[in-house]
């Protein structure tokens, strides 16, 4: 089963290049590029300082010691001490230069992702499991940080060292130098083939890591279901299967890396061996001095660990490149832009406050990601809510009620037709402007890890304590909130204490009414309340509904009775509009949806026949 959200790894034919991917990091690295450059220079300087120390020793050995100059010995010691201190300082300075800036690059990238996904359309969130996004924001961005901190610098330092080494080798004797460098050719060929395969493998591993995050997260989110059914073992199999897939991908990576790193070990070693043998012949026939051969081999031996470490640096670079791709896959998705603001008609100036008029004009909707042949979810919906009117939306489960409400704050955009507010196409309004007029209470009440006050205050800009108190009263939440340990200052949500479904629903309702919105959208806002609370909330809600326009999704007659009119949504179309009584009389489907279940006075005798021990 492939997750639809996981883009297929690019095929080798895509000519995906690690360098190209890494170069896409430029905008994020730009603010720190000078420091990064300086740090790289310092790292190079530090390794040079390391090379100077043996020279001092050589000087001491050749000069003062053999010459019997005791004061020269002191100078040598002092030089060593200073060089050592300088080297340590340069090492420290290099880290100090980039430690905070690179942590900030990571933070900035993560915040940019947070910023971006918050603004991506809901259609995106419907399809992307949050685990995939979480793994991109945490492990992938972390990987990029690691890459910038170490491999990037060392790739530069090592490359410089290698180039210098090559120059040294070739300048000493170019024929032997070429021989020493010959293994570089297969190394480059194999290296580039390895690059392509390793890039694929690491993309696979990271995508599977995201899938694992998804199943783990869902197992935690669905814990009540799993506990209720006792299905931990089966779920564990699902999670471990995902984990084994990660493991398999990682082992695949290791297989590739093992081959490549064996080569990275073997080829430089063969270079030294070849040079040694060829050099030995030259020394034997007198065409090469033993000293030159020694110097040659010394240089080759110094370069060997450099080449070896290039292998792991390159592997890390590939992983970082994959991380960049995965990150930018999300960042590249377009955020819906507001159209250029259309000047508001002047007549609206008078109606800046107070209830709005909302109209659906021949609205058709299909989810943007649906297959082309799928029937539209909403078809030809035409409805008008007069200013101050409350319209109930009734329909069978799955008839499209929630979808219809989601069009009002433009969480989704209609595929045809339009919605107008006070005669103005809402598509021409900025989302911020539109959403400032509309408040929604969703069916699934989402509370944040924040205090009661903060959760309610999210519904309005600059809500006062009085506003919040009023909203809590309307939702009949004041009573239970008073009994919370810290009252309105109690932290709720995942990290705080958990409320019952009915309590959460009432806080979501309070959030919706706190800002005195000009249009209120309530999606089955009372489903989890008990009868008494429901009646109390309805009474209070009636006052609020008197001052605003409201669209109310309802499943129960009691909720419908809050509305002035009712619209019946049937298979994506508005089948009838009228008052509750009218529709009960004239529309069979409505009557079926709203008719009271059979009276409760169930004859217990009927049951007794069932042979029950009651």
């Amino acid at each position, binding site marked *: 089963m492939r997750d639809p959200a996981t883009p297929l790894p690019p095929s080798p034919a895509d000519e995906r290049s690690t360098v190209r991917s890494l170069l896409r990091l430029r905008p994020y690295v730009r603010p720190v590029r000078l420091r990064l450059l300086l740090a790289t220079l310092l790292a190079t300087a530090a390794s040079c300082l390391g090379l100077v120390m043996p020279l001092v020793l050589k000087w001491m050995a050749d000069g003062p010691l053999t010459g019997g100059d005791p004061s020269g010995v002191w100078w040598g010691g002092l030089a060593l001490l200073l060089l050592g201190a300088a080297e340590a300082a340069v090492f420290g300075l290099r880290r100090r230069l980039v430690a905070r800036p690179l942590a900030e690059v990571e933070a900035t990238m993560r915040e940019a992702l947070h910023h971006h996904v918050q603004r991506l359309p809901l259609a995106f969130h419907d399809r992307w*499991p949050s685990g995939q996004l979480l793994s991109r924001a945490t492990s992938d961005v972390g990987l990029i940080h690691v890459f910038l901190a170490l491999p990037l610098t060392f790739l530069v330092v090592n490359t410089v060292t290698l180039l210098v080494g090559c120059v040294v080798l070739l300048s000493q004797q170019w024929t032997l130098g070429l021989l020493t460098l010959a293994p570089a050719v297969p190394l480059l060929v194999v290296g580039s083939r390895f690059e392509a395969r390793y890039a694929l493998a690491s993309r696979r591993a990271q995508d599977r890591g995201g899938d694992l995050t998804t199943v783990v997260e869902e197992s935690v989110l669905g814990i009540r279901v799993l506990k209720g059914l006792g299905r931990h073992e089966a779920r*564990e199999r699902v999670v471990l299967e995902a984990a084994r897939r990660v493991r398999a991908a990682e082992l695949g990576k290791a297989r590739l890396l093992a081959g490549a790193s064996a*080569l990275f070990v073997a080829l430089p070693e*063969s270079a030294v061996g070849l040079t040694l043998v060829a050099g*030995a012949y030259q020394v034997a026939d007198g065409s090469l001095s033993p000293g030159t051969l020694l110097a040659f081999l010394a240089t080759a031996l110094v370069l060997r660990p450099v080449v070896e470490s290039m292998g792991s640096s390159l592997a890390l670079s590939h992983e970082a490149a994959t991380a960049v791709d995965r990150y930018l896959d999300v960042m590249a998705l377009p955020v819906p832009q507001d159209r250029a603001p259309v000047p508001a008609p002047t007549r609206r100036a008078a109606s800046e406050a107070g209830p709005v008029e909302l109209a659906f004009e021949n609205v058709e909707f299909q989810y943007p990601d649906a297959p082309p042949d799928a029937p539209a979810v909403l078809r030809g919906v035409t409805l008008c809510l007069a200013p101050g009117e409350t319209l109930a939306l009734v329909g069978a489960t799955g008839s499209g009620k929630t979808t219809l409400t989601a069009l009002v704050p433009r969480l989704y955009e209609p595929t045809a037709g339009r919605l107008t507010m006070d005669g103005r196409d809402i598509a021409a309004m900025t989302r911020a402007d539109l959403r400032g007029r509309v408040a929604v209470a969703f069916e699934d009440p989402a509370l944040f890890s924040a205090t009661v006050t903060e959760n309610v205050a999210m519904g309005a800009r600059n809500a006062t304590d009085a506003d919040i108190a009023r909203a809590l009263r309307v939702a009949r939440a004041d009573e239970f909130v008073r009994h919370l*340990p810290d009252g309105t200052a109690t932290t709720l949500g995942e990290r705080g204490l958990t409320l019952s479904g009915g309590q959460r629903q009432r806080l979501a309702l309070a959030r919706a009414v706190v800002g005195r919105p000009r249009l209120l959208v309530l999606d089955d806002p009372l489903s989890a309340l008990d009868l008494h609370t429901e*009646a109390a909330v309805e009474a209070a809600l009636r006052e609020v509904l008197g001052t605003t326009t409201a669209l109310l999704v309802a*499943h129960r007659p009691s909720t419908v009775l809050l509305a002035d009119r009712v619209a019946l949504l049937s298979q994506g179309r508005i089948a009838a509009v009228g008052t509750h009584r009218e529709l009960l009389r004239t529309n069979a489907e409505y009557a079926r949806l709203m008719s009271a279940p059979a009276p409760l006075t169930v004859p217990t005798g009927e049951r007794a026949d069932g042979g029950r021990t009651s």
Partner: protein
Amino acid sequence: MTPSTTAAAGASVAGDAFAQDALPAPPGASRALLASLLRPHRRRLTATCLVLTLQRALSQVGPLLVAYTIDRAVPALRDGDHGPLLGVCLVYALVVAGSAASQYGYVRLSARAGQDVLLDLLTRVFRHSQALGLDFHERYGSGRLTARATGDIGALRGLLAKGLEDIVGAALTTVCITGLLLHLDRQLGLAAVTVGAPLYLTVRSFRRRATRVHRDRSSAAAAVTGALAETLHHIRVVQAFRLEAAGDASFREIDRRHARLSGDATLEMGRYVTSSRLVANTGIAVLALWGAHRVASGSLELGAFTAAVLYLRRLYDDPLKLGGVLDAYQSAVASLEKIAALLAQRPSVSEPAAPARLPANSPAGRGRRAVLDGVTFAYGTGGEVLPRLDLSLAAGETVAVVGATGAGKSTLAGLLARFHDPTHGRVLLDGVDLRHLATAELRRAVVMVTQDAFVFSGTVAENIAVGRPGADRADIERVARAVGAHAFVSALPEEYDTDVRARGTRISAGQRQLLALARALLADPDVVILDEATSSLDIPGERLVQRAMRTVLEGRTALVVAHRLSTLRIADRVVVMDGGRVVEDGTPAELIERRGRFADLHTAWRNSLT
């Protein structure tokens, strides 16, 4: 008094540890955890070390061959004897092959060992977190738990990947070079070893400070995951209420804290690199000076001095690299500490040491007799939710529980399902205390459906099959039909094989509840507990479910918690709760006649339907 208010009273005592991500772990728990993780793989780890040692040893052969060639092979060559050089060729070829092969083996072996350890750890964390009670999950938070199972386990991965190589490398270098130095000059060698003491002190101070930084960093990282997860889960609210900017600001705060601590960790490492390098370089300079004076005074040979000083640098170089390992180790230990604290949490309900078995089902029906015997219950240390409750459900009986929010209905349901254990008293199923039943046995008998009808990624069929893994398609369709879910499922593009996240698919809240009911039915339990399991259904849907329930519950014992009194149509008996007590108990008809609370509720409900 709601379950949550009392839970909160308890939470305010221990809640700080949860809020600050500072759950207690026994001292040394992280090291013990690491040891217990590595122990089962010690053979593979030993093999990995041996292969690595071989590789490192082979890589030291080169210089020896160079010396041999210059001293022996070249003169032999001049004498026309190609033998020694051929020998060099042969040995070199063997070294190349051997080091390549051992390098290949090392990378694969270490990856295998590392992945196995990680898989073990994930299994443990996952299994344990699933066993922990709902009270734990509600306070720990899903984001943080996800971070523990992913990011924190990843920290260990970093250690396993890098650690072994550097540790083995450093150990080999230290042993070899110390030996060489002692061989070259006893005094100089001993002096070189003493420089190890200040180096050790530097390492120790670094370790202490790094532990602290990494501990905070791990918490900060979990907080980042949690905050992001919350944004993603509540995205509708975020967008509809224009909370994006506020969300960015609060996320930034959490994220910057992580950035600060991550910077601190790097700086701590930088400080260590600087100070340890300074100590080592000073040591080299002092030893060189001392050696030089001895050469000048004639007590040390020049050649020995030169070689010793060149080796000195390599002696300190590799152990200095251990700083990187130590950093990875501290990071892993900080993460393991959090994981160990998680693993140290005891589940609120524990598995019995000697599990009992339920008696075989009676031929009369599947139902079992459930008894709450003198049960009291309190969340944490807060006030009691159930002061004292005695209730008996006859086998095969359907009992509805009604009452206002916070009357204790869900607590009652949770006790019967053993989501938590009573503070006093017992819950018995066919006379067996629930505490004596293994989870598997318990869940074969008792299944609970809550309001929260979570849908997992996967197909509709897979989601229903959560009720009984391995169920065949016919069974899945049968239960879907029974609860009235078949109609909407058939309308989906690929029916039962439709991926719930697939293109254009949206499952409504009511449909999710139908899937949850289908799962429960597929589980085929003796006792069914429905806690507000139909709150989002429309009236016809509910009616359908009620009708279905009559067949579904036939013969089973059922406890149904519902606000909607329509549920009572299937109830043999109604229990009215208030303030954690049963205030009325009888058949619906009896209670209506009694004109008590239930009669009031019923009248209100009838009125609400007109």
